């Protein structure tokens, strides 16, 4: 009997389609919706435009524009690492500490043990990746919450950093004379008044590289899947452990590169750097539109997020705001930027 009525179902094969063409505004909204990084990009543009109108040439000069890039390069690179972790629904509070420890390893291995700076740099990079590996194993295999793991790692790595470095700074002049390659990322290209350091270029290249990997490789899809729903990802054939560990190791490695870039930026190797990097990088990631619950957002958004903070910081300082007022306004702008973002998403949904 079941066949008698069910067979009726087969008699029609018309393709159902009840979408209809929408207005231009809707198309824009749809574009924003499918390309989430457009939203922070627009906020960034609006911010630049706003400050340009108020401050004029002082702000719109190639010098000031590229200065913003230089000021965000460290946070930008670290925020890229942070993005990867946050995409897997994790969070990495240890990024700043790992960055500093790696830079200290690069410096101390050169100056304390007399290793060739190239070797010391490789040791520093390994050190960063190793820190990431520890976090990754704790998160992926022992299944501890990432917040706690990296909170612990933050304390551990930072303390190690202070104990190992003996709180000693290696001076810029010494580095310049004996191990200039440590300052590699501080080298610069000038075009007109615009100044691009290698660090800035590295940040931008890295952002595009990661955007490519996340979008066009299987690994990238797995990162999103793990962040979206780890159980579903596991059931549908993703090696969740391996994906998570690779993300943390890569994040540690990127932080180590940030440490190298840091030496280029401040000239010296200082164990007290980067203490706010964790919160600043998370800010950039979230302003960039990546969900803290994982699995949603684009890594280019992070770059824009970091730049938004940089534009506001410099813009407000140029407008003569006192640092405390700057903080107050940045706080409000963080909320406002995300509110705008949310609003656009809602309209376009």
């Amino acid at each position, binding site marked *: *009997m*079941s*066949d008698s*009525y*069910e*067979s009726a*179902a*087969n008699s029609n*094969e018309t*393709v*159902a*389609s009840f*979408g209809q063409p929408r207005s231009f505004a809707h198309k824009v909204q749809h574009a924003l919706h499918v390309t989430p990084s457009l939203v922070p990009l627009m906020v960034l543009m609006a911010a630049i435009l706003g400050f340009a109108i108020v401050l004029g040439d002082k702000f719109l000069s190639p010098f000031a524009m590229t200065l913003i890039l230089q000021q965000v390069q460290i946070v930008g690179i670290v925020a890229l690492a942070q993005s990867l972790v946050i995409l897997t629904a994790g969070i990495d509070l240890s990024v700043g500490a790992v960055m500093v420890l790696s830079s200290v390893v690069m410096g101390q291995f050169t100056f304390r043990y007399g290793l060739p700076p190239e070797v010391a740099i490789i040791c520093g990079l390994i050190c960063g990746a190793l820190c990431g590996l520890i976090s990754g194993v704790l998160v992926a295999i022992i299944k501890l919450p990432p917040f706690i793991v990296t909170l612990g790692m933050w304390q551990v790595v930072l303390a190690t950093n202070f104990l190992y470095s003996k709180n000693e700074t290696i001076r810029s002049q010494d580095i310049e004379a004996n191990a200039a390659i440590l300052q590699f990322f501080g080298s610069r290209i000038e075009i007109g008044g615009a100044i691009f350091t290698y660090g800035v270029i590295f940040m931008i290249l890295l952002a595009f590289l990661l955007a*490519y*990997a996340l979008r*066009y*490789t*299987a*690994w990238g*899809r*797995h990162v*999103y*899947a793990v962040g*979206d*729903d780890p*159980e*579903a*990802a*596991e*059931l*549908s*054939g*993703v*090696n969740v452990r391996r994906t998570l560990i690779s993300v943390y190791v890569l994040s540690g490695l990127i932080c180590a590169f940030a440490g190298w870039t840091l030496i280029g930026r401040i000239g010296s190797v200082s164990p007290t750097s980067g203490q706010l990097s964790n919160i600043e990088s998370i800010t950039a990631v979230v302003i960039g539109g990546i969900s803290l619950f994982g*699995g*949603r957002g684009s890594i280019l958004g992070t770059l824009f997020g970091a730049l938004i903070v940089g534009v506001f910081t410099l813009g407000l300082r140029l407008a003569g705001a006192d640092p405390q007022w700057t903080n107050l306004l940045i706080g409000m702008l963080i909320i406002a930027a995300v509110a705008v973002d949310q609003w656009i998403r809602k309209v376009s949904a």
Partner: protein
Amino acid sequence: MEPVLKARNLVKRYGRVTAIDNCDFDLYPGEILAVIGDNGAGKSSLIRAISGATIPDAGEVWLEGQKVAFHSPNAARSAGVETVYQQLAMSPALSITDNMFMGREIRRPGILGKWFRMLDRPAMQKFAREKLSELGLMTIQNINQAVETLSGGQRQGVAVARAAAFGSKVIILDEPTAALGVKESRKVLELILDVKSRGIPIILISHNMPHVFELADRIHIHRLGKRICVVDPSQISMSDAVALMTGAMKPDDIPA
């Protein structure tokens, strides 16, 4: 004949609940084996244990005569055992194509694929579209749509299409038609027969007795965490099967 998939004395406890209680299981080549039982009888737990989604507390599993112990669904999958779980196992934010190829993506030929590990999106999309058309899931407007924007039935269809497309030794379907409409259910049933005709054995869990009796070669009746008997649908009435699975009848009472 040697079973393709065999399990003996499987046990799985959740706290004080024994979800699988010394259960045995056999699947023979080329057959459709239906597993029926009350809600909470432990059917899903059984197939999760067989397919690596949970690791049983005790018991052994053989695939084609080889002892296996899958520690992840991926391990089972690479051994050719493809499963559609009751809670669908999809990544909501990713597209239909991404979900279908999760864990076995196709890379571009040549340098792009080898060195840059670039995915071959066009090939994957083409394949996905074909499989969904076979299932008659034409109401899906865009193959790159995020799975979260699909209706419950559409998701079910995507999951079944995925299993049918990739399963090579065993395909396990845990209530594949539960959320499906009449038309789509029919498509799934046809697909099951199609897979069977390719010689791949299928495990089908379903509460829909007419479907079970229409398709199954043998019916494994599950009750209180264990297999109480296996019956031949041509030899038993639906009423008796239901009575067995609810405990109203004992296996010994089956009229010969």
